[in-house]
């Protein structure tokens, strides 16, 4: 039972991080129907920025919580800026192009950003300092849930609640929902669609940066290639939950995280990444619109 619980907590931790990245995919897809392939790279850049800032601060004598907060804030700002720029450069000129064009452009952007970090920084794995503090009140439970896991799960939960509130109740959230439903109609009633799309990219990228800082602290090392697999898995999670649906992305990510955790724990750790894809294919065959996705009716 203990082993089960340990795997379950591990799965939730994993799932939380997938959820943070998957939200970016699902929000962007909901609004402009584009698989933002470069999203994984935004997450990687967030992790790198946090590492650089944290190291500079640590070497200049700062320590503890202030390093964590400053590094996270800078990482979030930079990731948001990258997300914004990528959209402006690579996707905005292609708004009216056929479906395949923005996807190829996104793959190109992803390759570019990977190699940009590879050339400007290094191809080696860099050790990432564990910035997350040890929580004293977690000590009795340390057997099956460490403070890092606890912080990751709670942070994600808080962010989810904030995001839901933002989308449900603010003016910006309303505009985003309107654009997702019908872009032309939203434009007609006076929604600045370009700004809504920019906002979506900024929010999604900021969430990815939070995910980047958290997972880098959890795993303890990063390199330029971490974005690819994380991106694909997060996208799998988004599709699993029904792409375009925000609660769906979270649910999909948690299901994916737990599946991976149990499968590696009980079956075999060699095929860790295979389970994610098998799960995806099985779900899509049984229910192609995903767990919480709406079935799109086709008009003739």
């Amino acid at each position: 039972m203990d082993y089960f619980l340990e795997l379950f907590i591990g799965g939730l931790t994993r799932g939380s991080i997938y959820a943070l990245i998957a939200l970016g995919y699902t929000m962007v897809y909901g609004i402009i129907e584009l698989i933002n392939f470069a999203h994984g790279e935004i997450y990687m850049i967030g992790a790198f920025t946090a590492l650089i800032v944290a190291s500079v601060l640590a070497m200049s004598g700062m320590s503890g919580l202030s390093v964590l907060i400053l590094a996270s804030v800078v990482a979030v700002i930079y990731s948001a800026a990258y997300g914004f720029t990528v959209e402006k450069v690579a996707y905005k000129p292609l708004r009216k192009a056929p479906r395949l064009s923005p996807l190829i452009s996104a793959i190109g952007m992803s390759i570019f950003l990977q190699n940009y970090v590879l050339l400007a920084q290094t191809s080696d794995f860099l050790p990432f300092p564990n910035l997350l503090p040890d929580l004293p009140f977690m000590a009795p439970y340390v057997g099956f849930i460490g403070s890092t896991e606890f912080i990751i799960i709670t942070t994600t939960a808080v962010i989810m609640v904030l995001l839901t509130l933002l989308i449900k109740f603010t003016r910006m959230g309303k505009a985003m929902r309107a654009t997702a439903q019908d872009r032309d109609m939203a434009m007609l009633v006076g929604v600045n669609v370009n700004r809504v799309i920019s906002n979506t990219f900024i929010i999604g990228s900021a969430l990815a940066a939070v995910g980047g800082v958290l997972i880098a602290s959890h795993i303890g090392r990063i390199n330029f290639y971490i974005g690819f697999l994380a991106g694909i898995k997060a996208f799998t999670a988004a599709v699993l939950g029904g792409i375009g649906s925000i609660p769906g992305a979270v649910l999909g990510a948690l299901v994916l995280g737990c599946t991976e955790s149990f499968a590696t724990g009980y079956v075999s750790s060699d095929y860790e990444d295979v389970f994610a894809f098998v799960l995806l294919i099985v779900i899509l065959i049984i229910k192609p619109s995903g767990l919480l996705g709406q079935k799109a009716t086709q008009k003739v």
Partner: protein
Amino acid sequence: MSTFNNTKYMEGMKQSVIVSTWFMFLTFPIMVIRVNTIENIIEWRWMNMFYVGAGSFILSFVWRYLSGRSISGRKENINAQGGHISFLQRLVSEKRLSLPALGVVAVIALFFPFISSIYQTNIMTTALMYVVLGLGLNIVVGQAGLLNLGYVAFYAAGAYTYALLYHHFGVGFWLALPLGALAATILGILLALPVLRLQGDYLAIVTLGFGEITRLVLENWNEFSFGPSGISGIPRPGLFGMEMGMHEATVYLYFLMILLCIVTIFVVNRLQDSRIGRALLALREDEIACQAMGINKTRVKLTAFALGSTWAGLVGVFFAAKTTFVNPASFTFLESAMILSIVVLGGTGSIIGIIIGALLLILLPEYLRAFSDYRMLLFGVIMVIMMIFRPQGIVEGVRRTYEFHAEENKKEI
């Protein structure tokens, strides 16, 4: 008038300054700072910031000029009602021009291995392999409109079929060639069966997952595929049991590849006009209308996947024979992305475009060795820029039209 130009000029200057400041900010942590966490040293590379600033300042002018041109270009095109035909298209469509051009290409292809080094012949063989892969993927992506991001799985199937058959049973190249194609075709149908119901992006991501699963299985199933270390010592193709040295074998493989290219071009070209080809096009344009016309959607989709993967299987066998070694590292997602970009850059649906695209994408990086560190970077940039400024590819695929002449038909009756 001059004041107008002046304000426009000032406006452009201002924009470029903003753009370059933005990019200097954006690239600051990653380009300027490099931390060495082991020795606790921070390296500040301020010169990089200057390069980024200057570079983006100039590029923003180029960008504005190009996007202004591409917008006015589109307007012109609409006005001319597609009357504007590029030189390359004329080269293909007009017999008077295409026959001599074909002759020149044939002569170059024939004498290439004798005038260049063995190294260059090898690269050329690789490029030809990508031509066939591109044409094969084009059947699925360009003609049927099914975005397949896991094409590399079928390529791997071909390569591993030859490698395993040789390893266990000593099967030679010529027997492995059809078997490899068969294995890839079966794999293609196996993939197509579950994904028949899926459309668009769902299909893309499932095929991507399928490609990754294939690679991961090859990497981890040690008893079957010998894991990451792969299989080595695969023989090159033989010619009636003749003993060939390294040089002759390379040249021989080059000519075999040319032959495969010609066969592929012939088949793909005939396919476009065939019943299946037209069904594929109909499927791409409108699935519902296509069904209403009595086309069996399931069968057409299966055919598209099967036909596409057959070529990948054939090239896979060639790949194993050329490198004499296969391992899973050759079949990553990047390879699929590469083949897809060949199709898209060359021009979806255009045979000559895909040939040019493959040759450019494979040969250019090989000859620009000076930039070898930057070649993947440039590759990414080119993909983005091509999509923005020339999304139809280098050579636009010509839409086939069929005319029905009532008069002529009457006479025949």
